[in-house]
């Protein structure tokens, strides 16, 4: 870790930090071409302290995005490749007998890192999945009756293939809810793809990256985001959106209070990244698809729209008060 001495959060110059965060976005955009919005959303998600789920077909750069963020944020990084035979102990670690000390010693698993990439999380069995998800929720793991805290900050970026692919265990709604945001990357644009094809090897570029932030600065950004002014007018709008999802007959269930809180935090982080001094409706609108897309389900009678279409309709249906 570059800086062992914790710096009091208040003394950090927030505008400079925001500028640094802007550099993170700019540099990541050099690796993942044409996906600035998704990169910014990912960063907002991590700043507001939430876990991120990236869902898309293989080969669009999910893993690369996670690795890029880990490097640029200067966080300790571990990757867990989820497979159908993955066991909980493979994630959280296990106590192993040691002859020298004549006792058991805990060997921490890959979960003990500041940023954990859980790759293809829906390929593992529910048992392995829930080990990860419990660690995400509690921010600590308990092995053999000993509770061990996970490092601070602790982020999980999980990737998953769309559910209809063969050999997957889709995450249940209750566990999807643990992710603050779910984003998809999608195909790159025409020009971005051309640049990608002409450009250098992504892996080499990735290794050349220098950290633009550190863990302390990330925590300071989070504290600053949570202090950002949220006006009554914005809360009116937020509640109007939430109320709409609860009252409109097309949704199976409305947004929970947890989802409403997540919306607020994500909008604050986004507003901070945008350099706003307060949260504007546009900030809320920007994070809304990522935050509510995986929490809303349409009733079976409605033709299944993509979650992007659902959230766009939701946005257009609720006027800004």
């Amino acid at each position, binding site marked *: 870790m570059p800086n062992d001495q914790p710096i009091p959060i208040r003394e950090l110059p927030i505008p400079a930090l925001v500028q640094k965060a802007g550099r993170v976005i700019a540099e990541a955009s050099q690796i993942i071409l044409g996906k600035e919005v998704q990169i910014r959303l990912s960063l907002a998600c991590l700043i507001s302290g939430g876990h991120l789920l990236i869902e898309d077909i293989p080969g669009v750069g999910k893993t690369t995005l996670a690795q890029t963020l880990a490097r640029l944020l200067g966080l300790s990084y571990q990757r867990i490749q989820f497979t159908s035979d993955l066991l909980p102990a493979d994630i959280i670690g296990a106590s192993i007998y040691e002859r020298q000390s004549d006792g058991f010693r805990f060997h921490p698993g890959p979960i003990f890192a500041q940023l954990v990439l859980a790759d293809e999380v829906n390929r593992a069995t529910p048992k392995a999945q829930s080990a990860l998800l419990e660690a995400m929720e509690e921010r600590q793991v308990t092995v053999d009756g000993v509770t061990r805290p996970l490092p601070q900050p602790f982020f999980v970026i999980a990737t998953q293939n769309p559910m209809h692919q063969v050999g997957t265990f889709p995450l249940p709604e209750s566990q999807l809810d643990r992710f603050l945001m779910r984003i998809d990357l999608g195909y790159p644009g025409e020009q971005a793809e051309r640049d990608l094809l002409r450009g250098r090897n992504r892996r080499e570029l990735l290794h050349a990256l220098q950290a633009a932030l550190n863990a302390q600065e990330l925590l300071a950004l989070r504290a600053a985001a949570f202090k950002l002014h949220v*006006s009554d007018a914005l809360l009116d709008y937020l509640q109007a959106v939430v109320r709409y999802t609860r009252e409109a007959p097309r949704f199976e269930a409305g947004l929970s209070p947890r989802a409403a809180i997540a919306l607020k935090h994500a909008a604050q982080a986004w507003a901070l990244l945008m350099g706003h001094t307060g949260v*504007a409706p*546009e900030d809320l609108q920007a994070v809304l698809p990522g935050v509510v897309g995986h929490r809303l389900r349409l009733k079976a009678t409605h033709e299944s729209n993509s979650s992007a279409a659902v959230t766009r309709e939701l*946005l257009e249906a609720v006027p800004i008060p």
Partner: protein
Amino acid sequence: MNAVRPADFDAHLERTRLLWTLAAMLVMILPHALHLAPWIILAAALVALWRLAVAYRGWPLFNRFTRIGFGLLAFLGVFATYHTLNGPEAGTALLILLATLKLMEARGLRDYFLALVIALFIGIANFLYDQSIPLAIYMIPAVWLATTALLNVAHPDTSRTTLTSLKTTARMLLPALPIALVLFLLFPRIPGPLWGVTLPQNSAITGLSTQMSPDSISRLAQSDTIAFQVKFLSPAPSRSQLYWRAMVLHDYNDGTWSIGNALWPNNETLVTHGASVHYEMTLEPNNLRVLYALDLPVRAPKNTYLTADYALVTQQPVTERRLYAVTSYTNYSYGADTPSWILRRDLRLPQGDDPRARRLARQWQATAGSPEQVVQDALRMFHVQPFVYTLQPGVLAGPNRIDKFLFDTHRGFCEHYASAFVFLMRAAGIPAHVVIGYQGGSVNPLDGYYIVRQDDAHAWAEVWFAGRGWVRVDPTAAVDPARVEEGLAAALPAGEVPGYFFRSHPWLGNMRNIWDAVNNGWNQWVLAYGPELQKRFFTHVGLDYGNWLQLALVLLVLIGGILVLVWLVLLWRHRAPPPTAAVRDYRRFCRKLAKCGLARQPHEGPLDYAKRVSCSRPHLAEPVHAITSLYVELRYNGMGSTREFNRLVRAFRPQQ
């Protein structure tokens, strides 16, 4: 995790429903305990306890045949008690028993719902027996509780406390009050008793009867229940004039005076002096076909007629409280030209009895110059000789009762004096008869109503003089003038005054005045609100009584109005706060841009909107940006100057 398992939850739900249903049934059945056979209430309580044991102790439920057996037993028991399954008492008893038995098989929402609806009906049935204020006051929380039970049975919610559910139902019931009031005032009233049901309570009325035996009136002196109340519309006559006429008794037989059977219509000549008296009577049920009126009524109220005796006779016995207006003259004589064949029945005496009284009467007849003198002789005898006005006349039985009273005991109540006086007059050849009714009454200082109670019951006489007609003579007044001037309590010897609580404590008397006034108001304005008062109310507010289409429209409009009012109140409560100055100005800004064809979408944020406007109208970019960023500052950051914003919006001219 101590999550409630579904089975436990179902049992819990069932118990909640049972408890609420039982509570509602309890409050609705409780007042019936006052008039139903005790075993019915006891049986209902036992069934309810058994049902509780089933729910909480896991006792087994009865199978279907046992339940049918219990149902049949209920029918048999009710029939054995009331000798019928019909009528209000047997009906309520049966309803109570079957409703509690229904709980034995109650399972799920529908059954409890049914039991609750029956409980509400049992509650209404209370008013068949009693329409007093205490019951009405009791029924308010009872209905509230039953409605809360309905809520908790239909929508059980473990997170809701009893207090919140009570509050919820109070909020639901309150808007119903004005609707109830409108329906009470305007819904067409049907004349006649409720559902034509003759209620059992009327068989036990204390009051006058169509006969007068030696103790019939002194018995009434023990009762201070209200006979009727009077509101004088013209100046009230003096107390000694307050003779309330009920019936005239012509026939004397074996010590008992009775009404006889002739009730032919009135065609007597009436001579009146002085001013007429107008008043309104509120008559308590007397179970007689007679309305009371101040001596002497001149016109019969609706649906009654005046007999030749100036009694007001109705077609049906008075079984409900009745309001009527009468006009009377207190100074009168009537029947001067009554033919002698009619007068003859007021001269008839049974053969043989009471020789001493007859001898005395014949002696007066021989010595006095005129019938008037005979009357004076008789009254003087009562006045001069040591006659005592008392509630304890001693036993006067067997033959020659009047002789014993006149010459031996000298002790009697008003019926003895009236009876003996009329006997003497008839024996002296002067037509005479007994009149029974009430005398006096007390004014309630709180509302000015005269209250006449059963202990004001009285008997007096009327004698006929040729040329003058019938004239009232009260022999009791000759014995004890205080009876007429001051009332019974003043007239009776000390120690004989019925020891009512109220007479001993002045403040208790005051309390009774208040209670009487409240009760009277209730009777006058609530219970007596029948077709007559409704008609009066309609004329008062300018409605056409009998025009049912108009009435239906008025009802519809009023109830619709109340519903709209409730809706508006709800709307007002959940209204959006008024927009701030910044929001008003921003809307103005948006309107200005909309005129240029750049309307803001409702879901469009101000920053996005500004961006769009700037793209399509680059020359507006600068002012739009300034206005938008100030608006975002004001509205979302809580900073900035409203006045400055107002100035910017005013100065904004997109069309130029």
